[in-house]
């Protein structure tokens, strides 16, 4: 089992969610985060004083997925989240040791 983590632009969330449902992913966790990669921040102004906003708002999606579906998932997310402009984000894949469904107690791939 793998945990696929994707950091994407916030307005792309709906597109990514739809793409994932289409390929059969049943559940995702979404959090609002801040970050930057090579896309730097921007300058804002308040009553004559300038200040730099380094961190940009992003959305992080986490999906627990069976090993065989990883490549599909990466492709689906990439296609849906891409704009071609700087700041599109990144996808990380890590190993998932254990999964439990809280309601029923199922574990392993059945709990995905």
């Amino acid at each position, binding site marked *: 089992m793998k945990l696929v983590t994707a950091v994407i632009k916030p307005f792309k969330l709906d597109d990514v969610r739809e793409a994932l449902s289409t390929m059969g992913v049943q559940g995702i966790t979404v959090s609002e985060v801040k970050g930057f990669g090579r896309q730097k921040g921007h300058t804002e*102004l*308040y*009553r*004559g004083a300038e200040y730099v906003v380094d961190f940009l708002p992003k959305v992080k999606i986490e999906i627990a997925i069976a090993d065989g579906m990883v490549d599909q998932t990466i492709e689906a997310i990439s296609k849906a989240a891409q704009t071609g402009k700087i700041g599109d984000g990144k996808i990380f894949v890590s190993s998932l040791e254990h999964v439990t469904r809280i309601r029923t107690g199922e574990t392993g791939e059945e709990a995905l």
Partner: protein
Amino acid sequence: MENDIFQLQYALDTFYFLVCGALVMWMAAGFAMLEAGLVRSKNTVEILTKNVALFAVASIMYMVVGYSIMYGGDIFLNAITGSGVVEGGEENSTYAPSADFFFQVVFVATAMSIVSGAVAERMKLFAFLAFSVVMTGFIYPLEGSWTWGGNPVFGLYTLGDLGFLDFAGSGIVHMAGAAAALAGVILVGARKGKYGPNGEVNAIPGANLPLATLGTFILWLGWFGFNGGSVLATASVDSANAVAVVFMNTNLAAAGGCIAALLVAKALFGKADLTMALNGCLAGLVAITAGPDTPSALQATIFGALGGLLVVFSITTLDKLRIDDPVGAISVHGVVGLLGLLLVPVTNGDASFSGQIIGALTIFGWVFIASLVTFYVIKMVLGLRVTEEEEYEGSDLSECGMEAYPEFSATR
């Protein structure tokens, strides 16, 4: 028949006073929202509490002793009986004496409210309230007794005789409030992190600009009562005409101030700074407050625009002088309050420039020094400023024990 007309005039003038007083009371909500919008969320509860409490303190202290100092009569308003008549008072009063108190007390609260924004985010709540007791019970009423009260300044000279004229209070209320605010800001010091060691000015953005905008509109509406009510009557053709002119000019001055500030901000910073536009509206209103009855409509608009122009430069200059004023109160009410006074002789022959200047110096001198002393005593006795850690965590937690937006924070 003549008595009927007198009764009607009395009732109408009293009604007008009360409604205008209620509109000025509504300005307290305006200040509260404006200030809540321009401070950080961790300091929002404290500033709201300050605004609610200071209005209550002003109402009570002015009743206890302030009105008596300013206009004479017994303390605790003892002379005003239940039927609204002043025992031993004038037989031919044209409106109810309680209405006069009501209209005056909301002006006191306005002056006091100016201070709360300037010292926001770092002054202890109860230190501020202690100051408000002295300001509303003594400092402002004494100053008011020399101006609207017509008494000689410490027995030396009478401002009215010298050609001082301040229709609704650019100097008497607004500049006085700003003088107290300046004293407070000097003694409490700037917020941590506001000014860098090499003269940098760091932005500390307000948490809720919709509230700040709402507050400004509320103040704009309330100001019709502030200036309009200062005509002191409406039940005759002449006074009704005056009221209409005052309303019209008040509105135009606000509009002029808003546009001027917006354009100046765009020119100086390259962007349309909303907070400057909001301060511009208020600056326009303050600028016309000393003389809303005599200018023409165009003149009123221009006077307001001058206020809006001045306020932007004043705000940035105060920051360069490291005088930290989170809401621009000293600039809007003090610097432009002075401008408002100086504009009166331009259209009103009853006022003179020298009279206005002497009045301004008297008001500023007394209120600033008395406030400085009061704040200093409070600093020694109670302490003025929250600790560095409390300032970091937010005065909401240290002074009020609660958060303004608890669902947005991590703990829940």
